[in-house]
Every structure is written in structure tokens, then in C-alpha cells.
């Protein structure tokens, strides 16, 4: 079955947040801080207010009324302190977009700047141990005696990897259209990965009861985490509409997105491994330094995958955070696992080279029986099968491990492998199902940000009801629908699908309608290690003269539970791997040390993979039968594709050139 909204998307009829036709809409354009730290001395809006079409100027000169416990990034115009360059400090509302933009440039903001600090360093004196890492993992873990394990090891690796700031850059910029009705109820058409959470957080920010707020997000032009919780545009639209007395649209520009919609924290990761001569790990340590803003503590769970991957009698992981004069980092596809596994899987390759063991065999040799850190049994773990199957399909058997010796014309050729993993969890959700007009309607406040959840939930409902999918219509993307968690953490299908299945079972009993709340079922889940696994293989060619890296082919083999829809799954896996190629070779936001913020903030300077960058990318999978997950037996597939990709490419670059690049992205300069 094709995507149920496919026809709407190819004809231009799918309506995204900024596109709802509304009579009398006005436009709001933000003014952003020009300093990285300091105080706003004053905002002079007189020139802007005199310009054509201008309806209102918002700023801290007249702080709008907000809730007392608004999330600090959403608490607009409440304080005179500037937390980072690019923070929204004022905004203009006008009749047209062009008028608003022109007038925003005429708003004069006077600052009292202070010295700022925007640079993450491993020896930063502000590094501290946060209470937990995102979303609720322990900050540090320790098992066994790592120091003794390292001291007694025949081979040790002690290396530091760094990853830069990366930006999600979904194709649809964050946008919100806000409408207040006469009773003081607010409707927001918002680009959101989760309308229930969005509604709750926006209501909290505005100091409104949640019943007065409705968030609608039927189609979302990608998010990759950056639309997981509301960004300032959502609250700004509401405030601007209140000030103007008209519906107001806020559509952030691509440049503004780099400042106010979140990013993946840069990381500095030290990995130490001690092993015997056969490569069996005795001790493994993964220490991470990363950043957050002065406004909000967000600590990425970078080292958590290391708690899951390999059998190590002594195992320690630790996260340290420093609060800088930057915007708040946030979730970007596979938070934690993605940067963390670049480090761990690069280190495994370095260990393989050091002990002279094939990198596939090394991973097989260190495959654990139970989850290494917790000791919990796995619900299922088929990493070894993924590695073996991938090696067979990729033609790994005849690989000569010697680096830098294969040349085809001007190209140096190499291959690399890396493992991937991501947690398979689920969260409580609600859903309803009803017989209507001879068909079935399923309602759930889920989101389809391009993952295909509308289609997957249609299939799940049809399977439960034993009817043709054509008879089922899924309504999602509206906070008035039954409560649902965000599209994130690879938990969407597992969480929503459980609720949809149970609601449809309830409908079968009732005959007319059904409802489910999965809170009890989810809370009763047995304590088990539930994770998806995969193996990624890459072949690269490196121009011996220019250092240009091309990924000639990639293969991902995944074990991610039961796959609901093969077409959608392949698109998710392949799309994740392509984003991983971007991470490996080109993506980085360069911190502007002098002024704060980033020196590159558009798509001409922040490079994403384009069509010509992608040659052969293939994904295959095992259909796992795991009865310990959810009624569908799914593990989630949205994130694991990106995990491991960068390491596989980096390991292939080492094999091609003999150069070990430990600092992403692998740009030509690092190979010359």
C-alpha cells in the first residue's frame, strides 16, 4: 500500500502549518539579539511603528503576560538579559510579510554587552555532572574496576573523538499560525512532532488552562527532533496575534532556524579500551563533554549506547556538561547514540587494527549475553546476525585489512563497518476507534512528520479489525484528538500502535466504538533490555590529490523487530543512512567565537547531502519475532539508520587512506 497522503503531497494539497488560508492574517518577523551575552538597555520601536503596515512591536519594554513557569526558551520578552546571539528580543507585526521584515530592521535595540563564552573545551572549568541525561538515563555508570582492567590489558586504546554542532534542518522551516477567538481560546497551526505535548507546553508558557489551547499539525515537513517540543515561534505567534487582534503567522527563515530551533550539541569524547591479544575487551570507558545553554539544562545521552554494546567486565560511562552563552541544544535524530556510536565504533575499528582481528569478527567476539551495564536479559539481540549477513552481502570475506593500498585511477578505495543500536521503548498513549459511514475512523493525536505513521497506523488498525486498509481512516495531528506522545525516540509506532490496536480491539467488543489508554499496559512492561541493532557497511573512494571522499556504496542490515510496512521502513532506514553520510562528510555548524552564534547559517554553507552525493544505499532487515515489545512486535526504525553510519564511513576512509580522522566531518583538508 502506498502512503495514504501521497496523492495530497504530490499535488500540493497537503497543508503545512503556514499554509492554512485565514482571512485577515498578519505577519510577524522577529528581531534577534546581536550580542551573545549582556543586557538590553532599551528597545526603540518608534521608527518601526511609523513604517507602513506595522501593527505592533513586541519587546521587553512591555513584557507580555506569560505563565509563571514558562520554559525559559519560550518565555519571550520577559527579561532584559541576553542568553545567546540570535535570541529573539523583539518582533514586529505588520499587514504583510515584507512590511514586517522591513520594520524589524528598523527596531533599535541598545545593549550592554558582557564577555561571552561559547566554546566547548574538554578542560572547561564549568563542566559539571548533571543529575541525569536525556531523557531519564543515569549520568554516569560504573561496573568493575576500569583502571585495573586497563592496566592489565595486553592492548590499550586511548583516543578522543570530537563531533561538531549539527543542525536538524528539516526542509519545512518552523512555522506557526495563531488565531484567538472571542472567548480567549487559542488555535495554533504549528509545525510540531507532538501536538499533545506542544499544547501542554504552550498553554503553560501562556499561563492558560490546556483546554483553551488547540494545536493542529496535520502535515509536517520533517523535524528530526527539532519540532519535538515547541520552539519560540509557537509562543511568538500567539503573543503577536493577541497584540494585533488578528490572526498572525510566524514563518521562521532558514537563518533564524540555526539560532532558535535547537541543534545537536558538539561533543568531546574520550574512549579508553583495554583488551587481550585476541581483542576481547577487559575494560571500556567512555567520557563525554558536551554543552547546554544558560537557560535550560539539556544533557545529551551520548555515552548510553556504550552501556549496551559490548561485553566488558569493567565498564564506565560519564557525561559532563558546561553551560555556555549559546542557544539550548536539543534532540537531533538518534540523540546520544548517533554521536556516541561514532566514537565507540571508531574505537572498535582502532582496536581491530591494533590486535589484527577482522572488525566484524572483533564485534562478534565481544557480543554480550546480557546487557553489559545492567545485566538485564535482552528481549532480543541479533547484532551478530546483522554483522554476518552484512558481511556476506557486502563481499567482506576477501577484504585485505591493509590500509591505503587499493587504488583505482586517482581514487583510493576502502571499506568499513560499524554497529548500530537504538533503544526500543514505548510511552503511554490514547486512541479511539469508531464505525462511521460504513468505514472505520481511528483518532489519535500522533504526528506524521514523513515517517509514514498515518499509513503504518492505518495498517495496524486494519490488521486488528481484520478489514481492508481502504476502509480505515486515521485522523492525527490535532491536540483535540486522544492524547499521544511525540514522534520521537523511535517510539512513535510502538506507542501509538499499542493504543490503536487496543482501541480497535475495544471496538470489536463493542461493535460501534472503542477507546484505549495504554498507561497501565506500558507501566506493566517487564524490566528487560529492549534495543534494535544493526550493522552498517560502507565503501568509499578518496581522491588521492584533493581528499574528496565519495561513498560508493552503503549497506545497512537491521534487526528492529517486526517491520510493519517494508516500503516505509526502507525509506526510513535509507534516509537515516543518508543523513549519516552528511554527518560523516559535510555537516557542521561553525561556532562564531568572536560574536557568538554560528558563522554559517544557511544551506549554501551548512552542507546537506544532495542527490549527487548519494550513489548506492541499501537497507535490508531480519523480521524479528520479539514478544516482549508491544502488540505489533515493533522496535522503531526512525533513528537507527543514522547510528553507526558516520563510523562506518570514517573506518572506510581509514582503510582507504591510512588516515584516522577522529574529528567530524571528514573534510578534504583533514585528509591532505
Amino acid at each position: 500500500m502506498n502512503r495514504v497522503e501521497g496523492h495530497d503531497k504530490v499535488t500540493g494539497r497537503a497543508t503545512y502549518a503556514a499554509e492554512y488560508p485565514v482571512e485577515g492574517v498578519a505577519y510577524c518577523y522577529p528581531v534577534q539579539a546581536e550580542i551573545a551575552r549582556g543586557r538590553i538597555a532599551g528597545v526603540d520601536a518608534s521608527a518601526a511603528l511609523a513604517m507602513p503596515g506595522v501593527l505592533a512591536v513586541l519587546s521587553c519594554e512591555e513584557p507580555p503576560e506569560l505563565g509563571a513557569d514558562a520554559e525559559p526558551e519560550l518565555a519571550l520578552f520577559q527579561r532584559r538579559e541576553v542568553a545567546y546571539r540570535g535570541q529573539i528580543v523583539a518582533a514586529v507585526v505588520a499587514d504583510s510579510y515584507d512590511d514586517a521584515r522591513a520594520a524589524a530592521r528598523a527596531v533599535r535595540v541598545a545593549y550592554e554587552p558582557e564577555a561571552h563564552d561559547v566554546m566547548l573545551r574538554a578542560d572547561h572549568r564549568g563542566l559539571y555532572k548533571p543529575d541525569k541525561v536525556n531523557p531519564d538515563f543515569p549520568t554516569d555508570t560504573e561496573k568493575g574496576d576500569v583502571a585495573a582492567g586497563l592496566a592489565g590489558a595486553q592492548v590499550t586504546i586511548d583516543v578522543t573523538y570530537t563531533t561538531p554542532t549539527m543542525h536538524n534542518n528539516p526542509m519545512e522551516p518552523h512555522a506557526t499560525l495563531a488565531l484567538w477567538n472571542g472567548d480567549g481560546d487559542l488555535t495554533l497551526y504549528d509545525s510540531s512532532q507532538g501536538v499533545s505535548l506542544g499544547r501542554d507546553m504552550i498553554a503553560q508558557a501562556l499561563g492558560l488552562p490546556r483546554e483553551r489551547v488547540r494545536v493542529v499539525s496535520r502535515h509536517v515537513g520533517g523535524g528530526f527532533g527539532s519540532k519535538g517540543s515547541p520552539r519560540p515561534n509557537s509562543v511568538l505567534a500567539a503573543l503577536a496575534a493577541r497584540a494585533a487582534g488578528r490572526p498572525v503567522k510566524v514563518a521562521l527563515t532558514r537563518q533564524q532556524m540555526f539560532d532558535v530551533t535547537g541543534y545537536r550539541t558538539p561533543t568531546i569524547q574520550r574512549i579508553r579500551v583495554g583488551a587481550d591479544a585476541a581483542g576481547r575487551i577487559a575494560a571500556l570507558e567512555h567520557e563525554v563533554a558536551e554543552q547546554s545553554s544558560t537557560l535550560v539544562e539539556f544533557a545529551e545521552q551520548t555515552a548510553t549506547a556504550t552501556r549496551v554494546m559490548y561485553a566488558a567486565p569493567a565498564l564506565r560511562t560519564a557525561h559532563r556538561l558546561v553551560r555556555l552563552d549559546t542557544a539550548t541544544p536539543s534532540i537531533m535524530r538518534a540523540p546520544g547514540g548517533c554521536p556516541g556510536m561514532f566514537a565507540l565504533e571508531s574505537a572498535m575499528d582502532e582496536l581491530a587494527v591494533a590486535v589484527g582481528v577482522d572488525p566484524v569478527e572483533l564485534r562478534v567476539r565481544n557480543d554480550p549475553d546480557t546487557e553489559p551495564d545492567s545485566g538485564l536479559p535482552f528481549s532480543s539481540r541479533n547484532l551478530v546476525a546483522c554483522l554476518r549477513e552484512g558481511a556476506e552481502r557486502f563481499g567482506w570475506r576477501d577484504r585485505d585489512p591493509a590500509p591505503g593500498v587499493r587504488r583505482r585511477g586517482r581514487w583510493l578505495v576502502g571499506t568499513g563497518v560499524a554497529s548500530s543500536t537504538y533503544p526500543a521503548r514505548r510511552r503511554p498513549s490514547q486512541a479511539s476507534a469508531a464505525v462511521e459511514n460504513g468505514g472505520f475512523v481511528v483518532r489519535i493525536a500522533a504526528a506524521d512528520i514523513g515517517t509514514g505513521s498515518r499509513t503504518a497506523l492505518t495498517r495496524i488498525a486494519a490488521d486488528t479489525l481484520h478489514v481492508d486498509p481502504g476502509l480505515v481512516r486515521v485522523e492525527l495531528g490535532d491536540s483535540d484528538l486522544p492524547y499521544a506522545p511525540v514522534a520521537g525516540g523511535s517510539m512513535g509506532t510502538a506507542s501509538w500502535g499499542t493504543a490503536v490496536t487496543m482501541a480497535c480491539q475495544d471496538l470489536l467488543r463493542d461493535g460501534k466504538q472503542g477507546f484505549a489508554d495504554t498507561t497501565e499496559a506500558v507501566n506493566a512492561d517487564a524490566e528487560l533490555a529492549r534495543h534494535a541493532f544493526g550493522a552498517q557497511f560502507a565503501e568509499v573512494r578518496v581522491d588521492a590529490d584533493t581528499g574528496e571522499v565519495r561513498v560508493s556504496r552503503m549497506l545497512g542490515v537491521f534487526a528492529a523487530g517486526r517491520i510493519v510496512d517494508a516500503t516505509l521502513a526502507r525509506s526510513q532506514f535509507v534516509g537515516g543512512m543518508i543523513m549519516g553520510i552528511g554527518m560523516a562528510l559535510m555537516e557542521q555548524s561553525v561556532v562564531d567565537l568572536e560574536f557568538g552564534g554560528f558563522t554559517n547559517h544557511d544551506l549554501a554553507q551548512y552542507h546537506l547531502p544532495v542527490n549527487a552525493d548519494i550513489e548506492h544505499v541499501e537497507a535490508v532487515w531480519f523480521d524479528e519475532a520479539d514478544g516482549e515489545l508491544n502488540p505489533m512486535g515493533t522496535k522503531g526504525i526512525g533513528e537507527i539508520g543514522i547510528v553507526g553510519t558516520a563510523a562506518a564511513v570514517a573506518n572506510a576512509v581509514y582503510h582507504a587512506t591510512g588516515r584516522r580522522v577522529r574529528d567530524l566531518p571528514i573534510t578534504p583538508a583533514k585528509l591532505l
Partner: protein
Amino acid sequence: MEITLQVNGVRRPVDVDPRVSLLDLLRERLGLTGSKKGCDHGQCGACTVLIDGRRVLACLALAVAQEGAEITTVEGLASGERLHPLQAAFIEHDAFQCGYCTPGQLCSAVGMLAEGGPSAVTEELAGEPELTAEEIRERMSGNLCRCGAYPNIVTAIAEVGA
């Protein structure tokens, strides 16, 4: 300024601010929101439309300069309910996920297939180049897709272009 545009075969007289881009005119004034704004700087291709059959970035085109031009947006590709073959192929090959780059990809592909001539990856400059996957990838690289649907986009275009 008073101008008259031809959009998807319909005459559209409008009074426009001379600063307005064709993209903003289509989206904010004419109710044609199929053309997407991804960067507003000609860097992503999401706003690609056809002007007199050629693919053009509507965010870089001023509306006032389009007097008399034939503009086709994604809304104008289908004939009534019958999809353009590229639209059908995009659905069939799952050549999109979030769908936000899709209108631009489609308009760009329609224009690209009509272009001919050599590209940066064409080895033999004489004669018409064969529409290989490499040629399609090269010629479609002005249209970014963050979901990473590129392999399926190439498959869909190759099927229609064959």
C-alpha cells in the same frame, strides 16, 4: 503595481508590492501553497516552478517581472484528476517522506526532462546524453531532500524519463 500573471493556465490580475517574490505571491496572495519555502535564498529548490517550461526558483524571481509569463506550479501538473506520470511515479516508488521538497522535486524533474544537453557529468558531449542514474542525480542536485529520498526520486524519474 498592477500586473497579470498566467498561473496554471488561469489569468490572475494582481496588485503587488514590487518587493514581493513570485513565491510569496503564489503562497500568500494566490492561495497556491504547493510551492514551498525552504530557504528563500535559492539554496534548496523547494520553491521550483516552471516559467515558460523552464525550471525556476520562485523565491529568487520577483513577481512583478513575470508579466505575461506562463507559470506552472505543482498544482498545475495534473490534468484534472489524472496525475502527471512523474507524480504517479513518485507515489509508486515512495520518492518522498515529509513531502515538503516534493513539489519542487516534481517541477524540477519536469523541467529537467525537457532540457537535454550535457551536464557536468556527461562524458560524451556530442549528441544527446543518455538519462543514466548519474545524470539524474547530477541534474536534480539543486533540490534538497532532508529525508533522504534521493534513491527513490532517481528511480521514479528514470522510469518516466526512459
